[in-house]
C-alpha cells in the first residue's frame, strides 16, 4: 500500500510533552519536514531554548544544544562560526527571544548571522505557568497581569519582526501562524525559505509563528485558534517584513 502520510525522519519517536491543543507540535513537524525535504538532516544542528520547547533536543534527530535562557542566538553564532558548512537553527519562545534574550536576538540580526530562527509567539510564558510575556496583548489577563496587561504600568507588547526590520542585517523576516490548514501551509513555506536562505548563504532569517497556548490562555484548543484570528493577528499582522531577494520588502 502506498504511504501517503508519515512521520518526518527528522523527528524522534519520543512522545511530545506539549499540552493538548498546543501548536508547538505542528511547528516541530514543519521544521522536521523542511529538514527532510532539503536533505540537510546530517549537517543540521539545532539550539533549544528555555521555555516550553526546552526539551526540543529530545524531539529532533539532528545534533542539538540546549542553551541558557535567551542565549540561543549567541550559542548558534558559536556553532555556526565553528563550522559554517553546518545548518544551524534556534527554536525559541517569546520570553526567551523577546525578553531575556532580546540583546542576543537584535545583535545576531544586526550581524546578519547566517542562522535560522524559529520564533514561537504565543503571548505568554507557558512553561512557568502563564505569566505576562513581552508579547502579551494590552489587557491580556495572565498570572502576573491578573487585572489585564496595563500598558501604563506594564508597557506595550513588542512586535519583533517590525523591530528587526529597522536593521540592515536580516535577510528575511516573516510572521506566519498555524491556526488553520491554509496558514500551516504558508508557515511551512516561510520556514523552508528561512532554511534555504541559510543554505544559500543569504544570512539571518527569522520566522515568527503566532501560536496558541490553550492551557494558559484558559481556552479550548478550538477557541484558542480563533483567538489568534480575533486578537493576535490584528496586533501582529502576518506578512513578510524583510526579504533581501527583493520581493515584498515591508
Amino acid at each position, binding site marked *: 500500500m502506498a504511504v501517503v502520510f508519515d512521520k518526518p525522519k527528522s523527528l524522534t519517536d519520543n512522545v511530545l510533552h506539549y499540552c493538548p491543543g498546543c501548536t508547538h507540535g505542528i511547528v516541530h513537524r514543519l521544521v522536521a519536514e523542511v529538514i527532510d525535504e532539503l536533505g540537510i538532516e*546530517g549537517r543540521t544542528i539545532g539550539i533549544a531554548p528555555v521555555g516550553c520547547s526546552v526539551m526540543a533536543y529530545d524531539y529532533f534527530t539532528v*545534533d542539538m*544544544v540546549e542553551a541558557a535562557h535567551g542565549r540561543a542566538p*549567541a*550559542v548558534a553564532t558559536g556553532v555556526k*562560526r565553528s563550522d559554517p558548512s553546518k545548518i544551524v537553527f534556534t527554536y525559541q519562545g517569546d520570553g526567551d527571544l523577546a525578553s531575556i534574550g532580546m*540583546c*542576543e536576538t537584535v545583535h545576531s540580526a544586526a550581524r546578519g548571522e547566517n542562522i535560522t530562527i524559529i520564533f514561537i509567539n504565543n503571548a505568554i510564558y507557558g512553561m512557568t505557568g502563564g505569566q505576562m510575556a513581552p508579547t502579551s496583548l494590552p489587557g491580556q489577563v495572565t498570572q502576573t497581569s491578573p487585572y489585564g496587561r496595563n500598558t501604563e504600568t506594564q508597557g506595550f507588547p513588542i512586535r519583533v519582526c517590525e523591530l528587526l526590520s529597522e536593521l540592515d542585517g536580516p535577510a528575511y523576516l516573516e510572521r506566519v501562524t498555524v491556526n488553520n490548514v491554509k496558514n500551516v501551509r504558508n508557515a511551512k513555506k516561510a520556514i523552508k525559505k528561512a532554511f534555504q536562505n541559510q543554505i544559500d548563504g543569504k544570512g539571518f532569517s527569522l520566522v515568527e509563528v503566532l501560536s496558541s497556548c490553550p492551557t494558559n490562555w484558559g481556552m479550548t484548543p478550538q477557541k484558542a485558534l480563533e483567538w489568534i484570528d480575533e486578537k493576535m493577528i490584528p496586533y501582529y499582522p502576518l506578512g513578510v517584513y524583510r526579504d533581501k531577494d527583493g520581493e515584498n520588502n515591508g
Partner: protein
Amino acid sequence: MQEKVLMKGNEALAEAAILAGCRHYFGYPITPQTEVAAYMSKKMPKIGGVFLQAESEIAAINMVYGVAATGKRAMTSSSSPGIALKCEGISYLAGSDLPALIVNVQRGGPGLGGIQPSQSDYFLATRGPGHGDFHVIVLAPASVQEMADMTLKGFELADKYRMPCMLLADGTMGQMMEPVVLPDPVEIDTTPKDWAVTGTECKREHHIVNSLYLSPKKLEDINLERFERYKKIEEEECLWEEFMMEDADICIVSCGITARVSRNAILEARKQGIKVGMIRPITLWPFPKKPLLAAADKVKSFISVELNMGQMKEDIELAIRCKKPVYGCTRVGGMITTVDDILASIKEAEKGEE
C-alpha cells in the same frame, strides 16, 4: 623552541592561545584585558580563525559555549565585572561538561571598582563561578612566561577533564612586559569527539549537549560523576612552587604579583636573620593543601599575602587545619603590597603577635 621576545602579559597569553590551537575568540572590551581582544582581532583573520566582538560578556561566553559544543578550543577573556556577567555561561559549560578557557585579568571591586590590579575574585573563581555545584580549574600565573605557559596548560586541562578552566591573573600580569619564550605550536586534534555536535551525517545517533535533567536521581548521578573527576584533579593536578622552604620558620603563601614581591621580602628578611620561605600556589583550585599541611609541622606560622581582604587566607587555614596561626598581609582597591608591607607582617609573625 621559539626565541625569547619582550611581550605584555595580555599579548603573550593571546599568542599562546593561538599556538595552543585556539581559533575561536569572543570578547568584549574591558580594562585591563582589552589588549587580548585587540591582539586577537589583528591575528585571527590572518590565520583563518574567528575573532568576534560580542554584544555583551554574556553573549561572548555563550558563543564560547557554542564552539565548545562542536568540540573545538574556544576562549574568552575579561576582567572582574565582566567575569561576573559570564558566570551564567560558565555554569552552563560546567553543567554540560564542555571545555573552554576563560581569562580573568582582575581589577579592584566590588561594583565598578577600579581598573588597577587586584586578586579580589579569588572566591568567585575558586568556589565555582556561577550557580550550582561545580568547580573550574583555576591557574594563577606569576610572570609573563607563565601567562603563556598557563594558557596552554589551561586548554590541556580543560580538554582532559571536559570542564572550563580559568586563567586568574591580576591586572599586573596582564599589563607588565617581560621576556618570554613562547610555546611551540600544538598540533590541533581534529578527530571528532564522541559527544560533540558536528552533524550526524545520518550515520550515528544525535548528540545532545545539555545540562537539564528533570529526574533528580539522574541529576544526582551526574553531579556525583563530576565530583569523582574533581577528586582525581585534586589528587593529580595540583601545582605549586616552593621557595626557600628548606629551613623556613615562617611560610608566606602568595600567588601572582604578590608572590613576586614576596620573594624580595623573603630575601630581605633573611638578611635580617629571619628564616622565611614561600609556597606559591599555581593552581588555586585545586588548592595545594598537601604541601601546606606538611609545612604546618615545620613552620611557626603562615602569612597570606594577597590583594584582597584575606580570601585565600581561609583556604590556607582549612589546608593546615588551623594547626598554626595564619597572618594576613593585604592591600586592596588596586594598591599592591610592598616589600615593606610584607616585612612588617613577617616581623609581626616573628613576634607571634595576634
